[in-house]
């Protein structure tokens, strides 16, 4: 089973699946019996945000902190003041969904000193080796370094979330296992889990496979 730190951050190349995993991860913390809040710290992505899962999160009693203008008609990369509460109120767990790439991780810089000072965090690098600019461990490793430099929080582990969206087959996920392990070797960090959509997770032959609930779309 997963061991949760007080603060969990999800960073990675944009489109690697951070938001989906962050939402699921909060579900898992809640199911383990802890109070948890999710923070949308994405200042890059205009659509498909944590806010899309607001209903599912609130049904499970998970608070969502998201920018005032998320999913609205303005593109204003401002973070809400409530974010400070995540680091001041230490009796609740926090899951932070950080924007993609180094550009997204800059938003984290403001909070990095608080996270490092408390020193009770996991910072997970989410990798999808089906994304065209992170097809290999080496390419993903370069993105990792850029994000660390921008955000100021060192990674502690790796999640392999390789997928082709709705079309993902178990063998697709398995085919990326080699790259995921190479990335673990390059970065000297553990590969803590492989994630896959719930309908195929049981058939994926990898260690520590975690099933994901995906955001529903009607088009």
């Amino acid at each position, binding site marked *: 089973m997963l061991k949760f730190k007080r603060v969990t951050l999800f960073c990675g190349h944009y489109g690697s699946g951070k938001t989906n995993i962050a939402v699921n991860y909060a579900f898992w913390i809640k199911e383990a019996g802890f109070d948890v809040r999710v923070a949308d710290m994405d200042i890059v992505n*205009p659509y498909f945000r944590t806010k899309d899962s607001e209903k599912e999160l609130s049904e499970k009693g998970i608070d969502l902190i998201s920018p005032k203008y998320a999913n609205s008609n303005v593109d204003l990369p401002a973070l809400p003041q409530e974010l400070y509460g995540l680091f001041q109120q230490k009796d609740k767990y926090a899951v932070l969904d950080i924007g993609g790439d180094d550009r997204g991780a800059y938003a984290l810089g403001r909070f990095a000193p608080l996270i490092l000072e408390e020193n009770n965090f996991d910072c997970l690098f989410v990798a*999808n080796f089906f994304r065209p600019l992170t097809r290999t461990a080496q390419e993903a490793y370069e993105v990792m370094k850029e994000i660390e430099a921008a955000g100021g929080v060192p990674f502690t582990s790796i999640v392999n979330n390789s997928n082709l969206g709705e079309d993902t087959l178990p063998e697709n996920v398995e085919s*990326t296992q080699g790259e995921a392990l190479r990335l673990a070797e390059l970065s000297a960090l553990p590969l803590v889990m492989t994630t896959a959509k719930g309908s195929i997770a049981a058939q994926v032959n990898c260690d520590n496979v975690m099933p994901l609930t995906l955001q529903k779309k009607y*088009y």
Partner: protein
Amino acid sequence: MSEKVLMKGNEAIAEAAIRAGCRHYFGYPITPQTELAAYMAKRMPKIGGCFLQAESEIAAINMVYGVAATGKRVMTSSSSPGVSLKQEGISYIAGSDLPALIVNVQRGGPGLGGIQPSQSDYFQATKGGGHGDYHLIVLTPASVQEMADLTGLAFELADKYRMPAMLLADGTMGQMMEPVELPETEPEFVDKPWALTGTGMKREHNIVNSLYLVPEELERTNLERFERYKLIEEKEARWESFMTEDADVCVVAFGIAARVSKNAVVEARKLGIKAGLIRPITVWPFPKKPIAEAAKTCKAFVSVELSMGQMIDDINLAIGCSRPVSLCSRVGGMIPSPEEVLESIKKAAGGNE
């Protein structure tokens, strides 16, 4: 590893353009198409191409004009307000008979509007957009795979007919992620004897220009250009027909609206309503033939759009107003739901009995 990759629509256009031999990109960032420029910024320097973030959209389109005159494959991309800024340059490119690709990942308008998806630049894209008599070849992708496929096609058609082409997408198409198989074949280039490549002291110099001092000459150029447009209207209209053979209600929709409409058509069939869908893949040339053909057997049309009703005019023209055409639309960044489209289909089916 698998040939398939998971891409955002915006990235798929960028990668497909590179594979089509485009080595020159000029643009200015705007949501919701920024990933296209970002992808070009990362990739172009690695393959000896040119990515340049211009000081404005107007500068970018004029850089496109310059490269297009040399015969090289070149593109720019933007979203609605940015594409409005480019219109003068697009008119010059059309007036100079140059091939180029312009991508519009539409957002809500008018004015600054909003960043959510829209299809309200249909008139601008299909009726010219800038000043003067001209057309663009306008392609409307409805999946991330088509974002890639139609990019290659747009470059080919632009070269073939010596005119600018446009990919008319919307915010959801640009932002959504789907698996894509990218073309592995080498692009085919046509000869461009008109291009400004240096005479080498071996031939007369070429002139690229949209200014004509003699009105008779400008008239002749316009007439010749419209002969070419006529040919394109005959040969290059593209569409997809879905369950139209026996349809009583024919839905017409492109891009994201077509995806929603397809679901609604399937639902309508379950209820015993004979619905079908014609999805234009080109909106200029508009697929008049299949729509006129459908009018012979169906009772009514529904135009599903993310606008106040623009394509609906072309449907009415295509069928000579011989059948009622109703509009199902959401605007301002909203998308019609399958339920809303189904409701319109039901009304259209019942209204004529």
